[in-house]
């Protein structure tokens, strides 16, 4: 049997059970609308400003870094699968390993560069920055 039929069936179940719970809850629960309840929680204060705040750029940097590296893992996957069969098939180790070493090497260079450029440096305190510039002078 095609395994994806079963997976599809599980997907149905995985959506169906929560939906069923929602339905049950909808039947059970009361509804007492009231202004104060639906205000968003801000430690009990009246919410100020919009939620669409500008947040730390680092979140974005990390996301970018991830997008790149995650896709690289996609490219490593096929290699891991054929690695052992290839070796057993008589290929020399360097022949199979070297390309991936190069690949990972390039990745690591990129990672180190991003790291040193501060892509994954969450906080840059003014004091640390000051010390850095002084050291450079």
């Amino acid at each position, binding site marked *: 049997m095609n395994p994806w039929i079963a997976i599809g069936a599980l997907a149905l179940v995985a959506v169906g059970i929560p939906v069923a719970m929602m339905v049950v809850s909808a039947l059970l629960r009361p509804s007492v609308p009231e202004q104060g309840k639906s205000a968003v929680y801000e430690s009990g204060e009246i919410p100020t400003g919009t939620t669409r705040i500008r947040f730390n750029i680092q979140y974005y940097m990390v996301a970018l870094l991830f997008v790149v590296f995650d896709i690289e893992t996609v490219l490593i996957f096929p290699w891991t699968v054929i690695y052992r069969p290839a070796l057993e098939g008589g290929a020399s180790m360097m022949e199979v390993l070297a390309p991936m070493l190069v690949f990972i090497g390039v990745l690591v*260079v990129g990672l*180190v*560069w991003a790291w*040193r*450029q501060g892509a994954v440096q969450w906080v840059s305190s003014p004091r640390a920055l000051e010390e*850095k510039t002084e050291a*450079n002078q």
Partner: protein
Amino acid sequence: MVTAPPLTPTFLLGLTALAVLLYDSVWPDSSDASVLAGISVIGSLASLGTAGWFLSADTGLATEGISLYADAVVVDGMSLFFTALFAAVTILVALAAYDYFDDGNRGELYGLVLLATTGMSLMASANSLATAFVALELVSLPSYALVAFLKDDRGSSEAGLKYFLIGALSSAIFVFGVSLIYGATGSLLLPDVAAAFESGLGGRTGIAGVGVLMVAGGFLFKTAAVPFHFWAPEAYEGAPAPVSAYLSSASKAAGFALAFRVFVVGFPLGAATSAGIDWALLFQVLAVATMVLGNFAAATQEKVKRMLAYSSIGHAGYVLIGLAAISAEASTNGDVMGAAMAHLFVYGFMNTGAFLFVALAENWGVGRRFEDYNGLGAEKPFAAVAMTAFLFSLAGVPPLGGFFSKLFLFAGAVEAGLWWLVVIAVINSSLSLYYYSRVVRAMWFEEGEHDLGATPTALYAALAIALVGTVLLLPGFGPVIETAQEAATALFA
């Protein structure tokens, strides 16, 4: 003969990019870019030297070329020729960038430029549509970032956006075209695709035709040809001038390198035409449209950089003749395509040089309009002489390199029987003299007052190299055209 790996020039470029990044990782706060520029220049020089050595050692020129990595990459005369060109332009740009971006850290700049150059070199070697796509993106992605490099400049970010938007669109179209070609032929390797074309495509000509059209779209974007040229004026004008120089010469040449190989090797004209896919006709139409649009638009511009941008579109039109003048059995195919390659080579120097002068002007704080260049000839004679040489060469005025390459190109087209195309091209070329000479007039004939600062050494050096290249190509044109034509002819073998 050859004792180094055939892809050494490409590897050297890539390694240089990594070296730049490593240096920048070790000293991320160093504000002195001389080491970075030095690494870039040395690496590119090494690549240029290796490519030249391979070329002179006749690598793959006589034979079909050296295939590597299961035929995905091929090293032959053409790829080496273009790699040499890319490396040369990179040297110029690396030097110019040293003075142009005078604040902060430039590791990413050099890294991006070198990575893009690596991609270009790979494009010239691509023997498979997969390699082609990957290499194309390896060029495009750094280019987007380079155009938007001036983060606080509205023009630069706007240019980056437009370049990116159209780039993303065209790469999507390109890859969809590739998928259709794959559907029609069952392979991405150019020789196999060609074999499928030869054997009649088995009734899948419709898919193949749409695919070829879409693939052509991808190349037209890279080469800034009609109808995918919209980005070029904006991107070139908004981008930092060294980047404009880089994009308009190296990136364009890379697009053509790939287009030449894909269309000639992958979609052999004879088989394609009998399947109803006459791409030579397509390129004839596009060549005319591109050169007319580029030149006429350039003639109406008020800003020098934008004029150069449009003229760069016009030159794409000339080079397209290299594809347009191909016919199924003609023995002249190699000649005309070789001439197109040689024109790109000359163009690599003269156009880069012209943009570098614009970079210089921006560095001095001179404005962007024609009038703002008034009197520069009296104040900075050397730079102005260089610019004059570049412009006249671009216009194809005889004593300079641009004349010869255009002459060979047009002669090739005449031989292929495309008289009408040549007539249009010559008219366009004459028109171009008008707008190029506006700059010359402003620099030499008009009076102007500027408060010009010092002479930036590296930019001047780059300008001088470009000038020497442009002038030396006059007596030295023989080897260039011969190499190019030999390489192109090998493609048709």
